[in-house]
């Protein structure tokens, strides 16, 4: 019989990660879109790194950092925060790993908005924050939706990092991609098929939706 918990856990992880990325990634994208600091290319590069970095590398360093004996882990323990083998730890890892999927489309859309929109809001007495939230973000809604959907889907597809950091704890870190891996190794192919089918159809629908959305946006723009 198939255990639904990994699927439910995956959905919860992806939703939490997406929500946090919205809070962190969108302001970061705003900074990247408008800044002209010399270190902006470095930051852009750091944001894009997860696209090319092996999850085993990132996972390894997060493991060392989060361990109660590590510097970060010790400091976090003072506030009774444990990031290893915990849902929160997976969220932190996933946020880092899906960062480019949120930041890149949003930053690209923001920097393609005409400057005059922001400037008009400034001359109308609105602060930078008010302008960002009430003018810029509403103008790039399609990119925002695309960023959210892709972040969600990419978190659903995460594997190596969770393998390294998670400890395979049911209900905490046994997400669907790990469950598939377990079932395959335990030679339970039938169960693996079910998980895989759910994930595959989900990913397909998500990417198709993003593609159609983008096409629709382009048609509106033209």
């Amino acid at each position, binding site marked *: 019989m198939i255990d639904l918990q990994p699927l439910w856990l995956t959905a919860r992880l992806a939703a939490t990660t997406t929500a946090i990325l919205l809070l962190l990634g969108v302001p970061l994208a705003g900074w990247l879109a408008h800044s002209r600091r010399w270190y902006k290319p470095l930051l852009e590069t750091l944001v894009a790194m997860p696209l090319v970095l092996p999850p085993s590398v990132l996972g390894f360093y997060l493991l060392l950092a*989060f361990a109660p004996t590590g510097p970060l882990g010790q400091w976090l323990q003072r506030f009774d925060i444990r990031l290893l*083998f915990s849902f929160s730890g997976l969220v932190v890892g996933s946020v880092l790993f899906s960062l480019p999927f949120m930041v890149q489309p949003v930053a690209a859309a923001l920097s393609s908005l005409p400057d005059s929109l922001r400037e008009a809001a400034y001359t109308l007495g609105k602060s930078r924050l008010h302008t960002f939230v009430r003018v810029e973000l509403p103008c790039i809604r399609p990119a925002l939706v695309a960023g959210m959907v892709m972040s969600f889907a990419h978190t659903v597809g995460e594997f190596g990092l969770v393998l390294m950091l998670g400890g*395979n*704890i049911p209900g905490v870190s046994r997400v669907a991609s790990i469950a598939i891996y*377990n079932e395959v*190794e335990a*030679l339970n192919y039938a169960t693996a098929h079910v998980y895989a089918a759910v994930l595959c159809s989900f990913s397909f629908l998500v990417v198709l939706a993003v593609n159609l959305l983008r096409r629709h946006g382009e048609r509106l723009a033209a």
Partner: protein
Amino acid sequence: GPVKVAVAANVQYAFADIATAFTRDTGVAVEPSYASSGKIATQVLAGAPFELFLSADDETPRKLAAASQTVQPPKTYALGALVLWSTDNSFDGKQWQNWLKAASGKVAIANPQTAPYGAEALRVLDYYKLADSVKPRLVQGDNIAQAAQFVDSGAAQAGFVAKALVLAPQMQGKGRWVDVPEQSHQPIVQDMALLKPAAANPDARKLFDYLSSPAARAILQRYGYRLP
């Protein structure tokens, strides 16, 4: 060419020594790959080109034999021992059951679905009625080596690992460990199997035989295994 050996993670250090000795004695090179027994079985069933398989149990090689993946019946090469290992300063080897119950940190085991050392660790917990207090704190490594790694990095407070791992030179001076009494779990009978691709490589059988030689047995014993 070199003998391609798939080795259960618990034997990785011992096997490295055996392979060195074997190469020195025979001039035949060895190419080991380490993973959990379950993963190795999956890959062998999918056609992996391994010639020899050193399992962490006797059941997995039997399954492979049943699937006609072996060229001769499996043979026991060692009997594994389980230890509880911790790098925590408060670890008390004499009172380990109470310590384990009272501790609050994570306890690492290998994935019981795919690694026998993990399955036996669960039996130990049941035997000492520790299941209720420890099970919520269990974390699983993909194989026994990852479980050991969780303990070593401090990520887990303690872990049930193979004795062979804590006796390895790499582990010396890292934390303390205590033998888990044998009666608390099923014997960990570790079998090896000569796989189908070995038919094309006579050196594979040489290594298979070498594992029963006095030289290899001495090394296995040094790593805490009992001998069949």
